[in-house]
């Protein structure tokens, strides 16, 4: 034998799935939602998407360089973060604020904690929360979709949930399903998001547990706690409104910030659902998905700790 052989510990084969491939799949799955956003909110939406994605990648590159670490933009997770952040922004947001959001997501939430896999809250969502807290007015000035823009006062267009809170005119469910309503540029079209979600399911990137249980919990609670007493709610309205679809399919499922075990995932998804409805119904904020997911992110370490799988052939140890 002339050449030196490789020696390594078993197993000697690895599956085809790679981090990069998973992230690429998420990007592909988000494309319908991104296009829906551009369709309904115009080129401004496209600009915001481009800006957040590029700035996220650039920040990721620069901060790793600064910290003298290897470059990780190749794993595409920064692209996912940028894309999801963009979909969470109103299309009117000043561009520089979107860049600040990317900075917060990538540098403070992700890389300060060690980068991919180490952050304990969802970077894109934390950045959104940061922007809401910092620039509340800008983050809640919704414009109507281009398709309905001409006849209504542009400045005060309400999202479905906003309208529910303020007693405005509720949009019809079909518009909500297609995305012909106000809101963040990527959250309005349930259709596009579901298409993406099915792609992720088929590719095995996510399992059905989080989206289905999350959305199911919201629907159930919406039905139970109706406006006219118990069991009078309209689950479909709450399911299609706000950022629930985007949140349940793409954000609550983020690996890094969701539990590791099946049991944990169930608790987590139910928690997300309950908190979402708590925020929607019992706070002054019309929308609760972001904070619900963030709060459950924060609880993940404890959930993980309490849901260690039972030992094979015996009781769980500690």
């Amino acid at each position, binding site marked *: 034998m002339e050449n*030196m*052989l*490789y*020696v*390594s*510990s078993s197993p000697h084969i690895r599956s085809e799935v790679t981090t990069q491939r998973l992230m690429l799949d998420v990007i592909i799955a988000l494309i319908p939602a991104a296009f829906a956003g551009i369709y309904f909110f115009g080129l401004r939406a496209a600009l915001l998407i481009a800006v957040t994605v590029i700035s996220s990648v650039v920040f990721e590159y620069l901060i790793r360089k600064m910290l003298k670490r290897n470059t990780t933009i190749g794993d595409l997770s920064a692209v996912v973060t940028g894309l999801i952040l963009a979909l969470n922004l109103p299309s009117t947001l000043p561009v520089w604020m979107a860049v600040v959001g990317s900075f917060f997501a990538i540098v403070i939430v992700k890389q300060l904690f060690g980068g991919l896999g180490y952050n304990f809250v969802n970077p894109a969502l934390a950045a959104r929360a940061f922007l809401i807290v910092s620039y509340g007015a800008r983050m809640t000035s919704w414009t109507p979709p281009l398709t309905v823009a001409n006849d209504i006062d542009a400045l005060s267009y309400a999202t479905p949930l906003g309208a529910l809170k303020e007693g405005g005119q509720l949009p019809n469910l079909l518009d909500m399903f297609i995305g012909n309503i106000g809101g963040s540029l990527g959250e309005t079209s349930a259709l596009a998001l579901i298409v993406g979600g099915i792609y992720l399911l088929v590719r095995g990137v996510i399992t059905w547990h989080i989206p289905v249980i999350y959305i199911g919990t919201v629907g159930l609670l919406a039905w139970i706690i109706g406006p006219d007493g118990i069991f009078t709610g309209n689950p479909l309205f709450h399911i299609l409104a706000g950022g629930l679809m985007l949140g349940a399919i793409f954000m609550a499922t983020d690996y890094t910030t969701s539990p590791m075990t099946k049991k944990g995932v169930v608790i987590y998804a139910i928690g997300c659902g309950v908190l979402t409805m708590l925020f929607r119904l019992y706070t002054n904020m019309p929308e609760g998905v972001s904070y619900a997911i963030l709060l459950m992110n924060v609880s993940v370490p404890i959930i993980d700790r309490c849901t260690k799988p039972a030992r094979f052939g015996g009781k769980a140890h500690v």
Partner: protein
Amino acid sequence: MSILIPVAVVSGLGLVFGLGLSYASKVFEVKVDERISAVREMLPGANCGACGYSGCDGLAEAIINEGVHPSRCPVGGIAVVNAIADYLGIDEGSIDVNVARVLCQGNCDNVVFKYNYLGIEDCHAANALAGGMDACSYGCVGLGSCKKVCQFDAIIVENGLARIIPEKCTGCGNCVAECPKSIIKLVPVLSGFTVKCNNHDKGVIARKNCKVGCIACQRCVKVCPSEAITMDNNLAVIDPEKCTNCGQCAEACPQKCITNTIVKRFK
């Protein structure tokens, strides 16, 4: 009046609490030995466990309760031992100041490899796979398991070989226990010439595997004026008690595996 009432209220409280607390501490008194915490304070606080107790707290307890001698702590050195001995009024005893030494010079340039290792950077991990990638099965694997356990940053691994910085090493022995090849030895700081090799293979094999390994040619044995060198299963060993640091062995060694490791600081 405006002064009397407040004074009465607060100092009344003070009196009540003073009485209550003093009384309670008398009634509910639980003895603790202050000496333990005093000794604990004097120990270095590295919690390295080199003394064989559960960290410095453990040793402090053992010193007081079991009469263990303070020189059990190899880390603090004479100063700490003296301080504790003074405090407890006991004999200082003697402590050997030891320093760790890696008995191998087989870095990536010197040693021949037998395979291409793909795996975790850890000596135990590589060692589990056919004894590591070095053709010499006695030598330093060079993936730094020792470095990971040294709390004093005294070990660096360069070019596939661990090296100990004697100025930083406290002789705690953690690395000695960790090395899968058992090639780190604690030696008295003042010992000078050392055979930096651990290879017990026959000369031919040793020469084939490593450029700087001991090939058991016995030249050092012959040249040593104080008969301090013996052969142990194909490996030269220097007895520090007998060694006079004359350095003739180092010159005689064709493989250059005897070196003067005495450190300036200790001279």
